[in-house]
């Protein structure tokens, strides 16, 4: 029983890591109708920026805020410079461009910072809670992810900019006719997503340790979680991420040898998707023919 609880809590902790990156993926998808494969690497790169600032002597929260701002601006610039030229190209072209970004960020981080493992400071103390079921850092990740979720939800539902962003993504031409600056919305979307990614990276680095390949595996799970929850739903992304984390742990412990853990976990998730092809909380898109 204790083992079972341990695995569940461990799974929730890992799931929160996936959920935080999944939020960034959902943000970009809602804003620009595109899956950004470079999200993980952008988050990793932001984390290195924070690491450089902290190493240079800045206090943690100062580095945090500066990194967030830099990532926001960076995200917007990437949208303007890198993604904008292929906006009207076939969608696959844009996907390939994000894959190119993934390679560029990864290689550049490796070149500048080398591949040696680095430590990253955490704002949370290193203690265990609930009788060793979880650490304060894990709880920190969950808390921060939930805060971002609420912020994102409110943004899309209750603010004018959020509404404009949704309109720009769904029907850019009509949105333009309504006075929405579509280009600006797209750039904003990328900026927010990059900032969310930066937060995810900074929260996660103390747990996973910082190296250029830190986010590689996380991206796959985040992607899975986002789709399981529904790629258009922030709530779905978080719940999806948590489910992926817990499922993976339980599968690896009780169902099959850990050598096939990933395979079986993905299989189970795909089976769920077969019954709900738009994810648990996603909405089916109905197109007029």
């Amino acid at each position, binding site marked *: 029983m204790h083992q079972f609880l341990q695995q569940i809590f461990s799974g929730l902790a890992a799931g929160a890591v996936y959920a935080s990156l999944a939020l960034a993926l959902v943000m970009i998808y809602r804003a620009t109708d595109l899956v950004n494969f470079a999200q993980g690497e952008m988050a990793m790169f932001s984390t290195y920026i924070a690491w450089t600032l902290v190493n240079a002597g800045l206090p943690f929260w100062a580095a945090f805020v500066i990194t967030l701002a830099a990532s926001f601006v960076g995200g917007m610039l990437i949208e303007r410079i890198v993604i904008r030229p292929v906006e009207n190209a076939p969608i*696959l072209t844009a996907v*390939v*461009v994000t894959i*190119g970004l993934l390679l560029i960020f990864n290689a550049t981080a490796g070149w500048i910072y080398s591949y040696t493992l680095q430590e990253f400071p955490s704002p949370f103390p290193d203690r265990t809670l609930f009788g060793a079921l979880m650490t304060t850092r894990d709880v920190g990740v969950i808390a921060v992810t939930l805060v971002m979720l609420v912020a994102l939800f409110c943004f899309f539902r209750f603010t004018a900019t959020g509404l404009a962003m949704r309109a720009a993504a769904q029907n850019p031409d009509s949105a333009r006719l309504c006075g929405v600056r579509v280009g600006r919305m797209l750039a904003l979307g990328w900026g927010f997503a990059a900032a969310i990614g930066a937060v995810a990276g900074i929260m996660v680095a103390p747990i996973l340790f910082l190296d250029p390949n830190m986010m590689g595996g996380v991206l796959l799970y985040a992607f899975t979680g986002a789709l399981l929850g529904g*790629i258009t739903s922030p709530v779905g992304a978080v719940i999806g991420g948590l489910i992926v984390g817990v499922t993976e742990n339980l599968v690896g412990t009780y169902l099959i040898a850990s050598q096939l853990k990933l395979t079986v976990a993905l299989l189970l998730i795909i089976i769920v998707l077969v019954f709900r092809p738009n994810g648990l909380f996603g909405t089916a898109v109905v197109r007029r023919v």
Partner: protein
Amino acid sequence: MAETFPVDGSRAKLALERHSGAGIAVWRWAGTAALIAVAVVLPFTLSNYHVFQLTQVMIYAIAVLGLNILTGYNGQISLGHGGFFAAGAYTAAILMHRYGVPYWATLLPAALVCFALGVLFGLPALRFEGPYLALVTLAMAFAMPQLLKYFDNWTGGKQGLVLTKPMPPPGLGIDRDRWLYLFVLVVLLVAIRVAANLLNGRTGRAFVAIRDHPIAAAAMGINTARYKTLAFGTSTLFTGVAGALAAIVIGFVAPESFTLFLSLSFLIGSAVGGIATIGGAIVGGFFIEFVPNFANDISDAAPWAIYGLTMLLFMYVMPRGVVGTLGPWLGHAIPSLDRRAAPPNDTNVKGGL
């Protein structure tokens, strides 16, 4: 959002009308024959190493051709073709290693196994579109190395399987590298021929119709489920054969040879060459094989950054890929390989992807 392009290829048609029908046919045959002649003679003018590299190019071209069939002509994205490549490679490797099957006889079983796998995959894939389909195929790319490592008494596990490289038939007087080059060249030409016939015929038109207007296609009586599954199976058949060839030519298979990056490379090669073209597969093969080396020469500090930048450059300058962008423009002067294939509408790959 995306630019439209006349589905009936009217622009190319107008260009063609300037020439007589017989004139076109002669040019096409002469051009193709010349290309094949060059390809046959080429290995005898180059060093063994370059011959080996060109053989790799052709293998990747066959694999990318498979992906083009599925993603370009039928609109179903796949991020998992590396997994099918591995399936073909290991089928050939196990047959050669365990059962002593001669190398040339492994191609057919590899093709059949991968076709079956593709159909099995294609059936549940019918439910998914866009990013969801990407995830399902991605799962294949990740699951394959795990399964290969798990069933290690068949696959040699993490150690891999070392295969004896085939010797050329005696009396021909050429060495092993050149023999393998010619062998792969023959398979490539057959693959192109088969693909062209398939894609220019009823099946190809059904694929394209399903890609561009699935509801209209169904309304016209096309069995979308059957054709989509067929597209999957055919696509994986091609990629699986490429995998078998790779096992034969490299002489070694291991799970590490078939990572996610391989699947992404196929996608990149496909996009750079031209997703809904046949000739683009060859361009893609060249890209996958040579650009990493070229990137390494430019910068050995961050070669993959250069690779990424090169990709971006290609995508900006030629968003439909090399053959996709240049093909229609050259169509009136030099008949391109995919002249008769339907030009992509807006390469309608669904949803967010």
